């Protein structure tokens, strides 16, 4: 998918995320809006994975380590036709498989996540399995920045470097907020790039809400042969909705009716602007 098409997808995905969260009256609103551009680029531009090849051992793998931002993943998997979009109407309902953190009961999900600090280890195991079998697929995982205080992340990082897993792509959704407030106030993470480099990663920092930058950085994989890849995606929590952006209070808050209308209007405007831009480009 081309960059301009990905840009439109991101806007539409944001609307859908808000819509299913509003409908369910539950969800991790701001974190889903933060990581949706990364998921968009992964599933629509980078990864070789689809409902048709989901049992193929050579498919690329994605592990949603920041499991709480599951609404973003559900929306993308529905768009990729892993299940009908209407299935998301059951989000968080009695006996629905679409619970608040991903499980393998949902087609397209590789691993149950939700407790933080688990996804990277699992991704390391899959990447090791690929190396053992001589397969060339890659393993991608998105971690939240708040998640990085879990010690197991660093255990997994050591092993990724030790086994030279250049088929592993760890992405940090660096939106600088966690449920309590600023990550730097809760438990300081910086200097994060230096930490990852010293653990043996090849690190690239990008604007994680800019699909063009994301497309460009994924095209450079592997960043350095023999080193695990770490993408420090600088993002804005709640990106795309003015009153949610960069506010700690929106970690799992659901918009009220008025807020929801405002958000929809803002995203409609964004889509109109996108179409105008496209029209101008096409008119040239």
């Amino acid at each position, binding site marked *: 998918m081309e960059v301009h098409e990905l840009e439109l997808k991101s806007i539409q995905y944001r609307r859908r995320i808000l819509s299913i969260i509003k409908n369910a009256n539950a969800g991790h609103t701001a974190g889903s809006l933060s990581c949706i551009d990364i998921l968009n680029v992964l599933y629509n531009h980078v990864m070789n994975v689809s409902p048709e090849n989901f049992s193929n*051992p050579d498919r690329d793998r994605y592990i949603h380590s920041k499991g709480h931002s599951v609404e973003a993943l559900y929306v993308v998997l529905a768009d990729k036709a892993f299940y009908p979009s209407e299935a998301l109407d059951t989000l968080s309902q009695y006996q629905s498989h679409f619970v608040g953190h991903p*499980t*393998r009961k949902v087609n397209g999900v*590789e*691993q*149950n*996540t*939700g*407790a933080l*600090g*688990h996804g*990277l*280890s*699992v*991704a*390391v*195991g*899959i*990447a*090791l*399995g*690929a190396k*053992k*079998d001589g397969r060339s697929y890659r393993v991608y995982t998105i971690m939240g920045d708040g998640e990085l205080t879990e*010690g*197991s992340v660093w*255990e*997994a990082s*050591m*092993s990724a470097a*030790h*086994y030279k897993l250049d088929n592993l792509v760890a992405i940090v959704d660096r939106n600088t907020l966690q449920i309590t407030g600023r990550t730097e106030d809760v438990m300081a993470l910086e200097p994060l790039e230096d930490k990852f480099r010293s653990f043996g990663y090849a690190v690239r920092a990008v604007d994680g809400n800019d699909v063009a930058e994301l497309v460009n950085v994924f095209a450079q994989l592997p960043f350095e042969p023999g080193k695990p890849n770490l993408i420090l995606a600088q993002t804005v929590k709640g990106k795309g909705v003015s009153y949610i952006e960069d506010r700690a209070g929106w970690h799992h808050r659901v918009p009220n009716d008025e807020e929801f209308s405002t958000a929809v209007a803002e995203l409609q405007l964004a889509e109109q602007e996108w179409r105008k831009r496209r029209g101008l480009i096409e008119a040239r």
Partner: protein
Amino acid sequence: MDSLKLGRPNLEVFANTLLSLARQNGDILVTTSDSRGSGKLVPFSEKLPEQIVEMGIAEQNLVGVSAGLASTGKKVFAVSPACFLTTRALEQIKNDVAYSDQPVKLIGISAGVSYGALGSTHHSLHDYAALGAINNIAIVAPADNFETRETIKAVVDYPHPIYVRFGKRPMHDLHQPDAQFKIGRAIVLAEGTDVTIIASGEPVSQAVMACQLLEDQGISCGVISMHTLKPLDREAVLAAARRSRALLTVEEHSVYGGLGSLCASLLMEEGISVPLKIVGIPDEYTVTGSQAAIFAHYGITPEGLAKTARALL
């Protein structure tokens, strides 16, 4: 019964069995947490270096990585001291393995009070209880070399998560040559009408010897090796309760949440009331000493068990 022949440590039997299985199956992988020496896996690592993955002293990562490897079709044996494996990595066992249904084979070595004199940091007296309350993980504690060998053979293709634990001292051979082993099916070693001792893991040999003492005293005694704690062989327990006047359970585990608790709750739910005593490690600051000394302290000896059994009659 004749007197029992002393075999080899279950740990050794595990390591030898795994090596011979792995030689024929390249999908078998061992993951260790700086525990290949403790796991008697140095020969394995020398002969099949491509089939062992060292994770360092990092049990959480060990289990998470094992889940990832299992998802790619590997037959993963995550080998680590039972105390660390089931406590430090409990959340990874719960989520990455059991909840995600990744068929990792978790091997808890030097289980129970095998590391007796090293103190409670190194004991695993909680593992049946902790893992038993987690959905989708089987729990097996083989008693002797035969049960260990058969367990390891059976778990290679076991399609769901499973935890196996054993110790490191030589074990008595308990079984007849024609014995049959199946995960989830208890083995009745002897039938008795006065008392049946239901035991799991390494104390089974103490139970068999206690049974001999009781028989010598004219008491009809049965012994069941309940190698699988979960899924529990309910029928074997109920049959023993119908056959005998009293039951004794014996385990190398806290008296809370293990074999005894499982049997007691089953009997209550089925409305069967027989005198029952749960023998294990009581809920106290565990005494120090060797495994044998700790067993003796808490009455897990032929004489101690025979005495406890007699008191029930």
